[in-house]
């Protein structure tokens, strides 16, 4: 089993893993980083959405061979020194969450949407957010929180 080295939340990690192991289970079950959730395991629901460098990724379908040498950021590292990211704050202000299980992925996706489009329209939000599933039906408040974060930036 090869040793694979990557960065997660600013910390370098070397771990023995198979090349085709999915990143999600390594970080959750062996590193104890549990913010990204298992929702489907096949990259559909978005509950594990995190960053690889500057891009959105779904760790449940990132093989360790692709993780080697990369830098990942999970929801746990979005707030810096306990100061919330404006998107996290907007999520609290709009009281978006219900069960909360999908929200890490929703927030990470919204952060990247606002980085590339600081003032998204409803259609832009539909486009960017539709592949993050929420079974509680918090979409309406997600939309409001994104607009709130956009106007506070």
């Amino acid at each position, binding site marked *: 089993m090869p040793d694979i080295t990557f960065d997660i939340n600013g910390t370098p990690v070397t771990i023995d893993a198979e090349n085709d192991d999915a990143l999600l289970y390594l970080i959750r079950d062996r590193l104890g980083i549990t913010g990204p959730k*298992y929702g489907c*395991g096949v990259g559909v*629901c978005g509950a594990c959405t995190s960053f690889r460098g500057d891009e959105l990724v779904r760790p449940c379908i990132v093989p360790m061979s692709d993780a080697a040498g990369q830098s990942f950021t999970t929801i746990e590292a979005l707030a810096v020194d306990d100061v919330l990211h404006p998107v996290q704050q907007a999520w609290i202000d709009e*009281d978006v969450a219900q069960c909360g299980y999908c*929200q890490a992925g929703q927030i990470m996706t919204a952060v990247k949407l606002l980085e590339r489009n600081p003032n998204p329209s409803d259609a832009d939000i539909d486009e960017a957010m539709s592949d993050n599933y929420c079974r509680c039906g918090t979409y309406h408040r997600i939309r409001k929180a994104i607009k709130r974060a956009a106007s506070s930036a």
Partner: protein
Amino acid sequence: MSSHPSAVPTAAAPVDRRSFIGYVVKGSTLAVALSYGADTLGGGTTASALAPTRPVGEVLGIPELADGVDLTDLLLLSGDPFYYDFLIRITDENRIRFELPRMEVGQGIETAAAMIVAEELDVAIDQIDVSLSPAEIRRATGQITGGSHSVASLWDPLRKVTAALRALIVHGAATRLGVAPGQVSTANGVATAPDGRSVRYADVSDGVEGRNDLARTAVPKDPSTYRVIGSPTNRIDARDIVTGRMKYAMDLDVVPGALPTVVARPPTLGGTVRSYDASAALSMPGVVAACEVPTDVEGASSGVAVVARTFGEAFRGRDALRIEWNPGTADDLSDDDIITQLRAINLPTLPAVPILTKSVSGEFIFPYMAHAPLETMTAIADVSGGKARVWTGAKTPIAAQAKIARDLGMLPTDVEVNVVKSGGSFGRRLFFDAAVEAARISSIVGRPVKLMFTRQEDTKFGRARPLSIHKVQATYRRGGLLGGPGAVLSFDHRAATSALDARHGFGEGITAFAGEVGAFGFSQTLWHTTQLVQYDFGLTSLLLNEKEFPVATSSWRGIYSGTAVVANEVIVDELARAMGEDEYEFRMRTLDDDRSQAVLRAVAEAGGWGRSMPRRTAQGLGLHKEYKSRAAVLAEIKTSPSAQQDARVTKMVVAVDVNRVVNPTGLEAQVIGAATDAITTILRTGLHLDSGAIRESSYGDFEIAQMKHTPPEIEVIFMPTNGDRPGGAGELVVPAAAAAVANAFARATGIRPRRFPLRDFYEEA
């Protein structure tokens, strides 16, 4: 946890409510245990006031029992003897630790309960730490989360108990400060004398222990003085959620060495292991154990479990298993077979209509529907040394405890069931399949396990809202000819459903009490205490028949109403049109309920009912009464002339009357969530049974509503407070919203919606 013996009702002996209701307040500095009758607590409603006012025989003579006694009554009555049992501690740090004997699945009950505590105790909401109570046998039917009764059932007990606690604090503080109790003011966990000297609640204990007399005379606050209840309040766990700190069952590190575990399932429902070879699996990296999981006596689970260092390794091990399967129990069954068999058992509607009357009728078909919470079924179990410890998201933890004990041959008192906040339920977590299976696997492999159903298992081998068919027929006389408006002469609803499994404990209290209202089984009780026609439609009768199929079921948000009420409301629209009347005016004219008229009027006015709309778009109405509450929905839909593009609900206006709103922010979330469910169930998706296998497997093909399917515009209206006790809200809006979407679709396309999800059967959807 320990408690004063005299304060603890036990499940073993019949409980005399008057002498045994008690509560426990315990802490390092303030420790009080009291026992007294609920009706000595002063003010407010007790169970006897909830009882049906009409004689039982008279109630039973009316087809719609729900008009007299409804599900909410039954839940409150059956749980009442146990509802006063709370654990509240005041810590040395002057924080309030409150153990909630309900389950949080996103519905916001922790926050609503904390608001009640904050109100009555005069503490800030952020001084309260809420945890979920583990299964406590003594709570019997008082520790169930379901049927939208949590706020209603906490309302009197929690206010009275916390008012009593505040009375004790005030008297203790008065002694400490050397003033009369009436001179002590309380706020933010501090009691203050008129001269400004103060004492923290945590430092008050002298002279109050055992002062039952103080507790007996304590009265909850006058609602006109509320500063917390009724004020918009954000979730108390919001920060934990947005920072990723919230711990769901699979995130917990409570048992060292509990390893990820998954189960290989058979190709079809009810299949069993004939033989298996785990040698290849056991040689895979990280895999530490494999075992057969015997068929559950209640039909929930069977297969071969693999325990590994990570879930990824467990999946790989599972895929390396070589398993020979026996046939399943449903291999000859597909949806159409079930529909045929349900038609055969559906009771007939009333016989032929008299001369001069016309009729409107339809048969409606709703598919099996997965609950599909984002967090699948999960549980941690550690079975060792004759004891079992389990951590899981159970809404009926006492039933889970009993089932696990039975399964492992232990006493319930040797089984600890810790309740963990979970990622959604929608009815799914009334059952605890994963907890039972995890305990079984742990006992077989001899080590603690973390069991998770994969999404695919949860969809294919989970539970589902029962498939159901509904024949609805209304007869009417048109107006005009003989003068005056037309009249509906009869309204018949005959439902035949795949049987609803209720062996989760939710039914035990109800059926025990239902013996007093009629000789019904659980499903019939549930049906007759939830189903009614709230229009003046002459002779009405609503009847249910059901048949067992080897497909596991569980109540789905809205129980029977999510389907039955849609069928009724679609026929109401068709009746109005057949009688040449406007769908809104017709409802208003025939409704026999002021509160329903008020919510309907509210959405019609706010939503501009009847406004001119472009082609292929339309408004639709839906109305529902249940849980002592009312809901009306006006939905606007944009349909597509072909299957090129999905129909979209473009706007929703919802009005609810829940008597009293505890948390407007939380209630609005429940309303919008339930409205979103309507889009999922009416327009988008359902399960299909093909020769014993569920066709769908994940969100890729069980297509719940996504952002792009939901209306950008949603308006929620709360009716003014019109009663003391809050009505139910969590499921309330599902039926009204589902009906509104179906009716909007019908008005936009001219198609009569009969089979759901609509887009499977009508191109325009």
